[in-house]
């Protein structure tokens, strides 16, 4: 055989040879492999600085500390201080990954819960850090999928300045950490280096998102689509896909295993009757079953349309309307160019999947938060697609014009008219609300004996349990109403065993809404028939009180 002469395979090997010798097909997901230019670096750093400023400035003062922030902070406190997932009975209402991370954060801070004043503030610092990292991730996801720095900047700009984003992303919420893991997963997926460990890492990140907040499951179709399209054409596609799924499901399996080890996976007697919760012990699957059957009536949630009208659209109509249009456009553009349109389709399916969840579930208003980065992603990718044939400078100018609109318009991202029709800055950069909560806690410290039996809201729980003097008998009204350990053992469900009630803003309506079975009756009776207001503070429509129960 002469040099240069190709080897001749046997006939029965021809098919194999063809498969082996052909060059690997072009990957289906278009990827920017170009290095970041200097302008690209500047844009990325600028985007992160914008994220830091918009989320960090005034974050300790606005918005009010929310009940849910308090719940997750107290569960992180319990993890760190008691080695438990909750100071009360953990009933699998959420997977614990988020507050384990939060506990780790508090653990590494030199001052732990006291690092930044109120314990929730340290959690808010973590949220700002997470947001800045999320800006980096979103920027890179859009840039890698579209190749457009301008589009990446546009997406992250919206993600950072939208009032909807700022309001909820400053709060210590599971959704913020869930979104972070989702973005990590997408970022790793967008690396497209063809390695199995990359797919595994993307799956692992998404798995962590699932055990951070379960509603991430509605992002599964979009995520899985992007992954499968990403590995198509690679010689290791079988391994990559298998390990993506494996890594995704592993944290979920660990969560189920955790419940099973504690004998809390199934309800006692396999009783899934929603009308009479099984006695004996809590159950993960029973809680899931209960959550699947929750309706807006009689529960703490509201319906999608109501929240959209009363809360979300007033905060940021630009993002919600523009993002929805972008998601639909992404779907159409992607379907029109299936080979290169995978990122567009994937982003659209992610947003639509989450929108589907919002449309069908019982909601709290912050549930909208994950939609913000998903709609921003759609806007970025669609913008990159429709401006791909024009010069980058022109695309940048158009983007600046688009960004300037909501910034300059009163009622937009920066300015609004106050009640005197004066042009002022928007609340998130100007108003202080949490000072009322600080004053309330301080009054308790100054005037209430530490051994008093108190009903509080969760937002002040860690402050009262961590700082000296400790108020060990201060409990959340949710637990005082429903947790037998607290209701029966501490208060014996009687107003006579209650000394003070520290009312947070809108705690009264929440108690009434939570009173479907009469479980809050004894607290309401204490307030209405034996209570005396001893402290009160208000600002705008926010009002806090402290009520002493006279025996």
């Amino acid at each position: 055989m002469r040099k240069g002469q190709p080897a001749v395979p046997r006939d029965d090997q021809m098919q194999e040879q063809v498969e082996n010798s052909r060059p690997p097909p072009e990957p289906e997901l278009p990827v920017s492999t170009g290095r970041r230019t200097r302008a690209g670096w500047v844009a990325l750093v600028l985007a992160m600085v914008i994220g830091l400023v918009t989320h960090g400035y005034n974050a300790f003062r606005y918005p009010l500390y929310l009940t849910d922030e308090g719940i997750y902070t107290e569960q992180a406190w319990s993890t760190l201080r008691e080695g438990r997932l909750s100071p009360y009975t953990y009933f699998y209402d959420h997977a614990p990954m988020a507050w384990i991370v939060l506990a780790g954060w508090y653990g590494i801070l030199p001052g732990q819960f006291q690092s930044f004043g109120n314990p929730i503030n340290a959690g808010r610092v973590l949220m700002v850090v997470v947001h800045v990292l999320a800006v980096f991730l979103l920027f890179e996801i859009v840039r890698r999928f579209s190749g457009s720095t301008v589009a990446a900047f546009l997406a992250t700009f919206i993600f950072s300045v939208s009032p909807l984003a700022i309001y909820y992303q400053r709060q210590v919420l599971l959704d913020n950490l869930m979104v972070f893991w989702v973005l990590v997963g997408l970022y790793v997926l967008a690396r497209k280096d063809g390695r199995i460990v990359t797919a595994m890492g993307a799956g692992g990140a998404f798995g962590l998102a699932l055990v951070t907040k379960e509603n991430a499951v509605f992002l599964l179709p979009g995520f899985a689509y992007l992954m499968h399209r990403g590995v198509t054409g690679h010689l290791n596609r079988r391994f990559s896909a298998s390990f993506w799924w494996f890594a995704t499901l592993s944290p979920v399996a660990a969560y189920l295993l955790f419940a099973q080890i504690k004998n809390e996976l199934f309800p006692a007697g396999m009783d899934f009757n929603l009308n009479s919760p099984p006695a004996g012990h809590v159950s993960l699957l029973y809680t899931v079953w209960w959550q699947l059957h929750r309706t807006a009536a009689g529960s703490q949630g509201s319906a999608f349309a109501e929240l959209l009208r009363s809360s979300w659209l007033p905060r940021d109509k630009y993002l919600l309307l523009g993002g929805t249009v972008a998601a639909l456009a992404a779907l159409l553009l992607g379907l029109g160019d299936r080979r290169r349109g995978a990122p567009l389709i994937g982003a659209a399916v992610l947003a639509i999947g989450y929108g589907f969840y919002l449309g069908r579930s019982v909601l709290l208003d912050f549930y909208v938060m994950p939609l913000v980065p998903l709609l921003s992603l759609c806007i970025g990718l669609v913008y990159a697609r429709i401006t791909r044939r024009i010069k980058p400078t022109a695309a940048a100018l158009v983007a600046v014009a688009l960004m300037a609109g909501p910034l300059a318009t009163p009622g937009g991202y920066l300015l609004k008219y106050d009640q005197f029709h004066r042009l002022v800055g928007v609340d998130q950069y100007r108003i202080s609300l949490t000072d009322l909560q600080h004053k309330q806690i301080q009054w308790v410290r100054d005037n209430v004996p530490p051994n008093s039996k108190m009903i509080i809201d969760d937002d002040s729980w860690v402050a009262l349990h961590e700082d000296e003097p400790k108020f060990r008998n201060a409990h959340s009204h949710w637990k005082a109403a429903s947790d037998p350990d607290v209701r029966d053992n501490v208060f014996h469900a009687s107003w006579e065993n209650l000394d003070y009630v520290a009312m947070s803003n809108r705690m009264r309506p929440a108690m009434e809404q939570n009173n479907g079975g009469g479980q809050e009756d004894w607290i309401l009776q204490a307030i209405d028939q034996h209570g005396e207001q001893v402290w009160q503070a208000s600002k705008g429509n926010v009002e806090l009180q402290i009520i002493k129960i006279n025996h």
Partner: protein
Amino acid sequence: MQPILLVAITALSLLLTAQAAHTLYLMIYTWDQPDSGAMAGVPDERADPSLSFTVIVPARHEEKVIQGTIDRAATVNYPAHLVQLLVVCSADDTGTIARAQETIDRLNAAGRQDAQVVVFDDGPVNKPHGLNTALRYARNDVVAVFDAEDEVEPELFSIVNTVMTQEHVRVVQAGVQLMNYESNWYSTFNVLEYFFWFRSRLHYHARTGAIPLGGNTVFFDRELLESVDGWDEFNLTEDADIGLRLSAAGEQVRVIYDHRYVTREETPPTLGHFIRQRTRWSQGFMQTLKKGTWKQLPTRRQRILAWQTLAFPHAQALLGLYLPVAIITAFVLRSPTIVALISWLPVLMLAAHFVTAVAGLYEFTGAHGLRASPRTVLTMAFTWLPYQLLLMYAATRALRRQLMGVGNWEKTAHIGAHRTPDTQSAATDSVADSTATDSADSTATGPAANEEGATGRAS
């Protein structure tokens, strides 16, 4: 007592998890590497034949397959005058000698030179002694080792000639692949073990510079082989041993794996043979570990890899012994949740290995133009744990033999299940006569072969 037990369980679980994760990574190593094609690939263009080869085929009770193997080795796509063919047998194996001689006579009559049967009548009667005996008759540039049941790939010599001359390497390990993945319940996993070993793991070993070579389809520069005095005749895995000795000497090994050019083999025909083969391999690794060649490897990374590889059967045996303890402990011991969770990590890794096996099955069948059925996957799901238990049993058996000083060679029988009908030289007669354990060939007590091949003869 309980805290100590809990710490021990946690430590063992983490250790097993780390070991399993590393093994898993080695299994998928080449698929994970962007340059895997260049790492394992066969040159697209072939160099002119310049190297001469001596093919050594050690055979023992291989009457059923030896003729086909010789025929195939004699008709490779390489100039005949550059290929010397040596079949090496023990003098007591008259059946194989007769069959081999018959074929070689036919080849000689057809004008083929340099083909002969080498017979030895000294001990130990085992493969490394046969190889060393044949090595003394080898006179070509490169020594190639094939097993008696191998289907020698015709293009292989041309490929190795190209690799050795162009890449200036003196040792080449080409792929070996079991093919009969649906023969019985354990054959699927056995086939996949070979697949992952040659397709992936060996490349990592080669790149690191600590490679336990395979027993066949391996090519050595003859002078290099002679400089290290050939194979260790008292080692049950002389192939792994020589690989590590050459690695310690700084020799770079090139591993080739291309589905088109693998040497096809078969899984052991019965469970008993499988266990004996696996016992031999496990014990051979234990011997090689004890021998300490790995300590001579130049870098810590190489030493750790070699140690980890050689110590694996020990770990497997200990796991086999630990399993009943673990089951009892699970019922008796009340452990903290975190300890219980950690103790499940090895199970997670076991599941990861299963996922890898299933993906590997589709890779293997896809590459060889075969078709994996969901039924096979379902069977794998049920046989996965029993197979792991089987491996643990073999490792435990090896450990017991090692501790008792039993070191005889337990031979694996071959029936040609991997061969297509036209290449299978023998019919499907009973293999009972070739499947007996060779209890007489004790390598522990046999004399070492003397110099100059005094007890060997060529016929």
